[in-house]
């Protein structure tokens, strides 16, 4: 980013944080247009449902709109938006039945390892959907999306150690669930 662009963005962020009625709406629209794709992509990684990800992107920006005064410029807008988006996605996952989720994954399983049958993939996806949302979010971001633990920790508002614990618990419970269904991984 060039210095001029950086100055403009800092000015927009300042107007957004101050909430001055004369400039706030324009600043909010600028930030929305600048970050809607990033937020959508982040939410989609968690909920894995394109329609829900669109709704949750709007929900995220609605929460951002309401809590603009809490924005800390030193942390950066994107990281802040990601944290809010993660909470919105978590709230959504909590309200959904497991079988209603992960449509994207069942429909689009990769060819992958031929030793792993389609049935095992499907049962793994179903077992994953039965995990607690907190564990699912940590596992999908850290294992499936292969994001750094530090980034996942920042989005979840927990420590890196806590992310590792959640991922381990998710994998352990997944294995147990699959074993109970006759699949030995």
């Amino acid at each position, binding site marked *: 980013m060039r210095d001029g662009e950086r100055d403009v963005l800092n000015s927009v962020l300042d107007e957004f944080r101050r909430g001055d009625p004369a400039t706030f709406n324009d600043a909010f629209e600028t930030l929305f247009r600048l970050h809607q794709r990033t937020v*959508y992509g982040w939410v989609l990684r968690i909920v894995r449902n394109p329609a829900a990800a669109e709704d949750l992107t709007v929900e995220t920006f609605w929460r951002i709109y309401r809590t603009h005064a809490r924005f800390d410029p030193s942390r950066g807008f994107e990281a802040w938006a990601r944290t809010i988006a993660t909470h919105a996605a978590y709230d959504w996952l909590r309200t959904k039945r497991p079988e209603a989720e992960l449509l994207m994954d069942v429909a689009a399983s990769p060819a992958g390892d031929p030793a792993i049958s389609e049935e095992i993939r499907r049962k793994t996806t179903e077992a994953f959907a039965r995990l607690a949302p907190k564990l699912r979010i940590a596992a999908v971001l850290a*294992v499936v999306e292969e994001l750094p633990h530090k980034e996942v920790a920042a989005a979840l508002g927990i420590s890196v150690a806590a992310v590792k614990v959640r991922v381990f618990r998710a994998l352990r419970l997944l294995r147990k669930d699959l074993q109970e269904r006759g699949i030995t991984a």
Partner: protein
Amino acid sequence: MNAHDEDRMKQLLKQAIRPAGDAEPEGDLWPAMLQRLDAQPAAPPWFDWALACGLAVFAVIFPAAIPVFLYYL
């Protein structure tokens, strides 16, 4: 679960669930955002109300603290 089992489960999970990649929304979401803003006028979040209520209760229980509190504002 040992390290080998953990790696095996990670591989299985990666095989079952593909990364979302750089997916984008089908269109501009700003119109939906405008609808949302029009539908629900901004109201203070619940924790703002909780904080205000907490301060009010504190002021009732410890009225002598009010001047001290105002001094530090």
